[in-house]
């Protein structure tokens, strides 16, 4: 019985850890929105904007990936 409760708590904890991906999603959406608007107004700046957009996406994605790593640690290591 206690083992089952611990197992259930582990799974719920891994799920809760992924709530942090919300922030990463908002950040990626905002940075892509800005880059798309810039590209639409000034198509010549496409290549510059695209590289910087990828960098911004990678930075905000990293936050969500930390949550994912924590969830994986809870699921597969602990």
């Amino acid at each position, binding site marked *: 019985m206690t083992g089952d409760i611990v197992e259930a708590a582990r799974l719920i904890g891994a799920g809760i850890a992924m709530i942090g991906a919300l922030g990463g999603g908002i950040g990626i959406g905002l940075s892509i929105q800005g880059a798309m608007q810039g590209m639409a107004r000034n198509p*010549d*700046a496409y*290549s*510059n904007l695209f*590289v910087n957009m*990828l*960098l911004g996406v*990678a930075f905000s*994605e*990293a936050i969500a*990936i*930390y949550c*994912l*790593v924590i969830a*994986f*640690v809870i699921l*597969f*290591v602990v």
Partner: protein
Amino acid sequence: MKKIEKHQQRHGFFRWIALALLILTGLAASFIPPVQPDIEAASAEVAGPLFSLPVIGDFYLTNSLIGLVLVDLVIIGLALAVRKILKSGSIPGKSIGGVVIAILEVLFELTEKTAGKWTKKVFPWFATITLTVLVANWLDLIPGVESVGLLVPSATGSAIKTLIPGVLSTITRQTEGTKLYSLISFVRAPSTDLNFTIALSLIAVIGIQAMGLRYRGLSYLRRFFNVSTLFSKPGLGVMDFLVSILELISEFAKIVSFAFRLFGNVFAGMVLIALSGTLLPVFGQSGVLLFELFMGLIQALVFGLLTMVFMSQAMHSEEQEETPKDELPIPVVEG
């Protein structure tokens, strides 16, 4: 005319091979129902301790090390293919070396836009890291990489079914009262091992500091311990000093963020591929594989791109940044 016929014939031939493979997959999946394999975050030891150092401990031959050797062999092969093209002086055609040359040209143009006059110093780091991570990520997608290995008894594994006695077995659905085994694969993609990603990010971050120190001298350290305005402007000088300390902390955060971004993405891809093999219908896994092909490319590009951007930031001194007008990339209008 003859060439076109040959091309069409080959196209049709490959189509039939694909159809045969699809039917074979369906038959195999009904003969041996797929089960979810053990997923471990740490790489497993394939062979016993090779040697041991006094403080650090024993060194094992892990399966991600074997994967890393394979990655290195692939990259050496690519380098030899490029060398063959360059030595013969021919136009790179539809060969693998031509593809590598095209990739490197794209990367070089990207570097020129950011690094300016330091392009030739920064580009080798960028290209090396990108190619290594790209091959290491895509090693994950080859069938058999994480599913062929040794079966060892374990408490949390699955039951096994013998196909050829003593040679070939596979794990199947669990039944009562049988011995349980789990699989230690021979090869594992290096990017799914935290040791590889931390080592690579240490190389990248230490390389960034070394290039900064080499080309800006001791004035590079002013970025981290900014005491130049501490006494001349008392209020703002303290602020400058605190900001530079924050800069120092962010260098350490770079190591963690580099390592966990790559590890998290590729490990998540590995778990997704393993799970989709048991969850989705037979052909559904192909979509996941395509997605992971894309993710591996993006992650390799991001790792290399961030290294390149940080490195060119470290090498450009502040005096140059104040007169940037003639160094800004001028957008080229084509057509």
